[in-house]
């Protein structure tokens, strides 16, 4: 194709260079060029937030950013939240509190939550619900997402770390 341009984007700490069409969306760059398929596409009007990633630390909808706009910048996707062997507190909390069902919106929702907790480490229930304005989940009714974010805030405040191997603990019957 004509008009290929080179971009250099740091993704999850790794410098990634590629020749791309200027019209390529960041989400397609991540998914197609880098095979980082954890970032999903749920709509075409920037409403659903499934594609949310961190751009220089701030949550953005990667379907609404051109890859060239991220040139020289740093991106964090769901794959980069932790090191794939341990879980980030937000991932751990979504697991424990059942903050996901089908898991399709989840990467974007978790990234949005990380963005919130970066700004506000101890959000109220209302602040969490307001902060989720940019994402849509069709499965959970949001309640366990809210619980998960509250829980993550607690873990992050206490810097508690849990390995992924600590899995599938059977809790008491309610």
């Amino acid at each position, binding site marked *: *194709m004509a008009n290929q341009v080179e971009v250099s984007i740091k993704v999850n700490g790794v410098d990634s260079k590629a020749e791309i*069409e200027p*019209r*390529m969306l960041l989400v397609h760059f991540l*998914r197609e060029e880098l*095979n*980082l*398929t*954890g*970032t*999903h*596409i*749920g*709509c*075409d*009007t920037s*409403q*659903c937030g*499934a594609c949310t990633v961190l751009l220089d630390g701030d949550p953005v909808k990667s379907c609404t950013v051109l890859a060239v706009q991220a040139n020289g910048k740093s991106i964090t*996707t*769901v*794959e980069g939240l*932790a090191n*794939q062997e341990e*879980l980030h507190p937000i*991932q751990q909390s*979504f*697991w*424990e509190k*059942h903050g*996901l*069902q*089908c*898991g*399709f*919106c*989840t990467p974007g929702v*978790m990234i949005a939550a990380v963005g919130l907790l970066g700004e506000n480490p101890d959000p109220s229930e*209302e602040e*969490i*619900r*307001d902060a*989720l*304005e940019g994402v*849509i989940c*069709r*499965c*959970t*009714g*949001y*309640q*366990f997402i*809210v619980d998960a974010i509250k829980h993550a805030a607690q873990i992050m405040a206490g810097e508690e770390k849990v390995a992924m191997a600590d*899995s*599938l603990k*059977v*809790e*008491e*019957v*309610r």
Partner: protein
Amino acid sequence: MASLIGSAVKRKEDPRLLTGNGCFTDDMKLPGMVYASFLRSPHAHAKIARLVVDKASQLPGVIAVFTGQDLADKMTSVPAMWFLPGCDLKPKDRPALAVDKVRYAGEAIAVVVAKDRYIAQDALDLIEVDYEVLPAVVQQEKAMQEGSSLLHDDVPNNLALLWKAGDIPDQVFEEAEVVVKERLYNQRVIPNPMETRGAVAQYNPGGGELTLWCTSQNPHIHRLIYANVLGIPETKLRIIAPDVGGGFGAKIATYTEEAVVACIAREVKKPVKWIEERKEHFMATSHGRDEVLEVELAGTKDGKITALRVTNTANLGAYLSTFGAGCPTIDFGLMVTGAYAIPQAAVVTYGVYTNTTPTDAYRGAGKPEATYQIERAIDLFASKIRMDPVEVRRINFVPKESFPFGNAMGVTYDSGNYQLTLDKALELFDYQAFRNEQEEQRKKGKYLGVGFSTYVELCGFGPSAVAGAIGFQGGVWENSTVRVHPRGTVSVFTGTSPHGQGTATTFAQIVAEKLGIPIEDVELVHGDTQSVSMGWGTYGSRATAVGGAAVSIATDRVIEKARRIAAHELETTLDQVEFINGQFTVKGDLTRCRTFQEIAKSANYAWNLPEGVEPSLEGQSFFDPSNFVYPFGTHICVVEVDEHTGEIEIKRYVAVDDVGRVINPLLAEGQVHGGIAQGVGQALWEGAVYTDQGQLMSGTFMDYTMPKARFFPPIESAFTETLSPVNPLGAKGVGETGTTAAPPAVVNAVMDALQPFGIHNLDMPLTPEKVWRAIRSGRDNG
């Protein structure tokens, strides 16, 4: 050891999904893969006068362009699979790609295959089409009128079906002490799972095998239908549902796009991917509901309901969708009397073709509509006789002693205790305190309202013999193979194909508990027609009640065989062997024992098996239930209506559900929350809006209100457990409780709040504008 069944076990499927390692259909990447995009009609009803694809074909990067004509001898149209008898059904298949005429806006007329999706999109713009626009019919009652434009020449009045069940003489209503009549509209809603539909197809020209990865709730049903559509044997078509990002009914149906993608993969001999855009999803994936419900209830002044008759005029859209004929008839009609012992009932359903997207199952499928009309009618009846709506419900409940209970429409409720969920909900809620508060607040110009919904659902399809009797072209049993490997780990093959429910966890709980082994040792295999023998789908809250039951029985058969081997090794008789916590022991002698893992090895190595016992350790079950299951419960919603803006705030939401045995309370509660969000969504915000010309106005997330986190207070959820006698687990099903119960609970609450304004009924969604206008005019429905 704590019991696994009934425990809030964390999900086995989550670590993959949480780290971005899931595999959804769009995540599939195959060597040499190319991309398909569909050209869709902008008109709801038009003749295709001219269709020229030459310029698109010539665009660099385009591999092929196909029209309906091109595919005519390569695949057939896609048929429905529910052919309801006795209703003069006139099924109309979805054409692969429309030829000559389009019947709804968004219908596909051509498909481009290109080396990437950007080029495929570019090529769509180069296809030239001339349409001769025809008058469109959108609203079902208008479409039935004489002289309306016809979608299909051989379907007079666009009437696809006329179904009647039950008959009540007019005299019953003429002589009744009280009659309540209301016209309700259960509006069209759009399922909108967060993952749209999509398909990846790969063809092997050597052997003729086709593999289709697609977003399916029922890959085996897709194979059954598409093998025929593609003209290949089922043995050559493999369907895989990888991770599926929600379904809500929308991924039951067999559509044309997936079959077209498979067909063109065979033509271009390259793997082809198609991922539906959200705007396509709005137009081309089945919609739900869209039923005009005219309900007439007869009763006595002291609150006893004596008869009910309902007319449902249902909008089927442009073609008959997969389950399209069943939702407004069987699924709806058999449940119109709800949780009440109403002696007489009758239903008439008109199914009508219109120039709109075909309608099909949407979370609940028929039961939410049935519940909506009876729960609304009860409140209207209560209001008319000036009785508390809770009291009317109590008076008319099917008493707990009456189960199994045959309702007036001829189905038998398996088990129930309706009063119990109501009592528990009232206890959580404190009804009297609310009524006092309501009165106080009204004096200050604040309008609070409470709404009740005491629902019962028909779930857990089979029995298969019933499916046959009602014209469903398939079985509704489920199967499982529980395969024990030599080291004692277990693969569980299930026909249940999940899309977010957590089945890989709940089914593993069942197996691990029964075998007394760690849950980490159990893995589920699902969603692939090549590894699982059969499966009839995940819908109608049937996963646990039918699929889980098959898993349970197959596990019992593993234990049965293992016990024989253990008895042989322990040199005792079968009746002397006990199996407790994963150990086979001889009664009275705990020193003589074998672990489950030891027997797994013995069975698989087969060095020393008892006479007549074959090698390996595997159990299989094909479970066809003897009846449906009937989950029930009580939902209570409290709202505040702003008199000045018409805005509605949900102040409280209490849900007490009885879904039989709860396998995992955390997952069950998650299902309840999600269902309520969708049910409240239908009541207050969601609704598909068409223009008279059939243009979908609510065609994006900007125009169609999806529920957001800030719309809800925390939901207060609790369960009672009334076991079902229909399956060995006692399970009933939890997936559709919220969408069934919530809409009338919310609408009843808003009507209760608006009672001082003399308003009795408003149709969903109760948007601020609609409520504001009603308050201003003091009239129902503006």
